[in-house]
């Protein structure tokens, strides 16, 4: 604007504008500030603000300045009358002038009260020319009006005048202006953004661009998102793929008692088969028995009286229990089916699945009726427990978990069985991260697999490591409909190898 140009010219001329108030008295401080801000943004100048306190006389103050203070008015009246009845002060001078004038005249020692309750001039004024008397109030007001030596006025007096509403306080804003790093006397408009026109016409070369505020977040962009649990699942899948594992057809939630339990050498009275733990199905009600009758006969034998070197559980095994339908309680039901298939052409094999399993459990912060099980199966000739340990170390190392310990445990279908523990830096304790073992000969040899083909299995839940890693307290906020879409949308990439505790 013109004013901005005027400021620049003046600054060029003076090198420094000490007071914009003095230099540009016709411009209000708001105008000055916005012009200065705008120029500063372009680095034309620097400025600092100087605030000064001012006082103006009120109407009453101005009147006193002209006519003299109330106390002078009173002493002049008393001189004129000789004496004045106190009760007449108000009627002669009016209530305001009378009251203040009397108080201040007494204070100054100008008047005294005689025995008949009349006011007279005090002894020291008896022979004084009243026109010689200093009217302090008037002279201070004059000083304020002329705006001179305000510093010398006692703050008490100023406050008193403010209280008496003879003066009003104000503020004057002034600016001190100096040249900026890019000082010049011309003004160019700064561009905010590079446009396609500027690119195509080369106009950008002659333009100046407004500095960008980098201390900012940018705009929210609209975006889709994959579910955090499925992102972790994908990490696991990639680990399995990298180790040569093929994904099992785990898309079969309804299982028979046979595949979910009997095939895995879980006896028919095992607590896992209780209504308390397993979802049974009422419609459809009854499954078929497997076609492989030799296999069925072997399973009956290993449960009832033993076979393949086992003494068996020694109870009456009932095919009806096999025909009960359940929602699979573990994906090992699928592994069993795959291993039975493997018996037709036994060879080293690696299989995995990550899919849903179902438990008839009371739902709480760490338990849901359905969750995902990660399961690996590795079959090879004459592999050892040491191989299992080594393999587990390799597997978990790929998800960033090292320093494993193995604890003997019990599973109906694996022997030996090992719980896998790792030290958790965040929780500062050993946590169980999975379960593993060698499948029992009763299970494998019943299928027709050769004795020396040993099969390792291990499993863990998908939710637990995800919850530990990403500090999700409640499983229902991870899996199921109670998840927050914001949580899904803002969840970072899942990287199991990323150490969150360093």
């Amino acid at each position, binding site marked *: 604007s013109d004013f901005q140009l005027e400021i620049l010219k003046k600054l060029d001329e003076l090198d420094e504008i000490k007071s914009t108030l003095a230099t540009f008295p016709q411009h209000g401080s708001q105008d000055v500030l916005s012009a200065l801000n705008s120029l500063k943004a372009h680095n034309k100048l620097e400025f600092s603000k100087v605030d000064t306190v001012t006082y103006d006389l009120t109407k009453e103050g101005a009147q006193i300045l002209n006519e003299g203070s109330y106390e002078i008015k009173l002493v002049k009246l008393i001189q004129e009358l000789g004496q004045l009845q106190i009760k007449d002060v108000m009627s002669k001078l009016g209530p305001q002038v009378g009251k203040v004038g009397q108080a201040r005249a007494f204070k100054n020692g100008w008047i005294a009260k005689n025995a008949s309750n009349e006011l007279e001039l005090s002894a020291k004024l008896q022979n004084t020319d009243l026109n010689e008397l200093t009217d302090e109030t008037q002279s201070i007001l004059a000083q304020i009006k002329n705006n001179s030596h305000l510093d010398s006025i006692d703050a008490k007096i100023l406050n008193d005048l403010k209280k008496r509403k003879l003066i009003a306080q104000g503020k004057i804003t002034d600016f001190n202006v100096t040249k900026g790093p890019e000082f010049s006397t011309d003004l160019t408009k700064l561009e905010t953004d590079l446009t396609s026109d500027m690119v195509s016409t080369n106009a950008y070369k002659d333009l100046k661009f407004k500095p960008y505020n980098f201390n900012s977040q940018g705009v929210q962009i609209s975006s889709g998102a994959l579910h955090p649990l499925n992102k972790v699942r994908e990490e696991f899948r990639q680990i399995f793929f990298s180790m040569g594992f093929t*994904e099992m057809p785990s898309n079969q939630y309804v299982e028979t008692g046979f595949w979910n339990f009997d095939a895995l050498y879980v006896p028919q009275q095992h607590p896992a088969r209780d209504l308390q733990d397993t979802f049974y199905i009422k419609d459809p009600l009854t499954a078929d028995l497997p076609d492989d009758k030799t296999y069925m006969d072997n399973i009956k034998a290993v449960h009832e009286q033993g076979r393949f070197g086992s003494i068996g559980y020694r109870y009456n095994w009932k095919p009806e229990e096999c025909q009960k339908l359940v929602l699979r309680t573990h994906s090992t039901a699928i592994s069993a089916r795959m291993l039975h298939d493997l018996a037709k052409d036994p060879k080293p094999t690696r299989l995995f699945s990550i899919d849903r399993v179902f438990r008839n459990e009371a739902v709480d912060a760490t338990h849901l009726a359905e969750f995902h099980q990660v399961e690996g199966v590795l079959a090879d000739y004459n592999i050892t427990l040491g191989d299992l340990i*080594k393999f587990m170390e390799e597997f978990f190392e790929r998800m960033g978990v090292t320093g494993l310990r193995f604890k003997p445990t019990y599973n109906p279908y694996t022997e030996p069985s090992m719980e896998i523990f790792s030290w958790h830096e965040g929780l500062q304790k050993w946590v169980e991260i999975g379960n593993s073992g060698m499948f029992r000969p009763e299970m494998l040899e019943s299928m027709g697999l050769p004795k020396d083909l040993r099969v390792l299995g291990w499993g863990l839940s998908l939710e637990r490591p995800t919850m530990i890693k990403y500090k999700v307290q409640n499983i229902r906020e991870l899996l199921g409909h109670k998840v927050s879409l914001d949580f899904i949308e803002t969840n970072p990439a899942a990287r199991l190898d990323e150490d969150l505790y360093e």
Partner: protein
Amino acid sequence: PTVSVNKQQLFDLLGKNYTSQEFDELCFEFGMEMDEDTTEEALKTGEEPELKLDISANRYDLLCIEGISQSLNEYLERKERPDYKLSKPTTKLIIDKSTEQIRPFATAAVLRNIKLNEKSYASFIALQDKLHANLCRNRSLVAMGTHDLDSIEGPFHYRALPPKDIKFVPLNQTQEFTGDKLIEFYKSPEQKNNIGRYVHIIEDSPVFPVIMDSKDRVCSLPPLINSEHSKISVNTRNILIDITATDKTKAEIVLNILTTMFSRYCDEPFTVEPVEIVSEHNGQSRLAPNFNDRIMDVSIKYINSCLGLDQSADEIAHCLKKMSLHAVQSKEDKDILHVDIPVTRPDILHACDIMEDAAVGYGFNNLPKGEKLSNANFIAKPLPINKVSDIFRVASSQATWVEVLPLTLCSHDENFKFLRQSDNGDLAVKLANPKTLEYQVVRTTLLPGILKTVKENRKHSLPIKVFETGDVVFKDDKLERKAYNERHWAAIYVGKNSGFEIIQGLLGKIMQTFRTEWIADYGAAASGRGYWIEEDDSVKTYFPGRGAKVMFRSKEGAEPKQIGHLGVLHPEVMMNFDVPFAASFVEVNAEVFL
């Protein structure tokens, strides 16, 4: 199962005051888990500190402090395995054929000249409770009773009698009950969670099992209660244990565990007085318990091969001895170990169980780690339907939809009524025993889960765009498992407007990702692979006139088939799920792209 033991008592028995960490370590290597050490709590309550130990479900011999300390002492090589012996029988248990109707097996034994104190008496009771709850499946398979032998007189009889003919004062009562009155009594609200829990095992039977002495005094009414008359106390010197069961194997295990664990307190330690079981009707007369040695032969090569070790017979025997298994090398075959399995270890079923004990004795964490198994010979493959799923998932998220993972189980209403659908019974798999209404059926559409997710996120800014790729389950009588999974993909748009064209556009984007172009004129405009939608008012879930089926022709000449549907969701459906917005939805069978 978890077993609580007195901490100081256990440490005294182990001859060492372990630090918490040391004991944790010992448990870990042995295969127990220390769940809790109540030392800090006990300081406040003034009670004696306890350790809560998590025991493997097949180690019934570790369900009491006697067994835990015995096994740990053997593991630590501080003590020898006891040699359990039988003395001479002095009494009989005569089993009547009538018991076949209700609870056919029974066995018994006597702990003669026993001296219990308060701690061991409490442990004796607690072990029975643990066995009842675990191995005995809440007394349904096996129940045990204990009696002061000096208050009753053998021979004893195990019979099944009509409830009215059984009359006795049950334990902790003062009044005499008949069998039928006793059932009523235990079904009362006060008893419901106590003995009442076991009433169902016999209540519908015309006869109840009962154990009586030679004077026809009732000793116990299994599986419910013993008699007040024969009850034992800490001062009882001669205890008769009776076991009744529907499972003979488990009955014998229970008797063996009870007698081996507590015979240590008899004047002649580890010696049990057997009872002559007379069971003529089924030819099972015998002496009980049976403490005969059980020998299992196991190959040294097999153990070494499984463990990746090259141990000698002696070395393996040493490891096994720590686990209470005594092994000697066969004289005929140097590869064979004869392993003597004590009656306390019914969990040993196969040589693999011995192999595991050899590994535990050696220490899992001391085993030589195998050579790295080669990954080279295996070609990894994803499951084809999962690969198709991933294409759906990536394309949907690229199209700015958000993936959700609702549950597979839902209520019957959510799957049918709330969607304005009726159940004709041939589609959905129904659960028999859900704990809540939330889990009545396995979903046959992805819509309920998606709408429930939207409901929970109603406060989210509109529009809400979410999708799921997941399995639904359908019945199929022809299959062994009578049901199969089908992979579906579904997406919803929820906003101020129905957004039908947006959902239609998303479908187009997905189809294009699967190399399937839209064909105009309901498939007539071209004859090759492609898709189109046709108005279809048969799905009542959609607003009338706003529902359509998705048609797909896989290749030139192929018969077009419906692979899904889409439409504007009916306002009733929205309100049934508490979502007061307009919405459009699409669901497609993903398996057609296999």
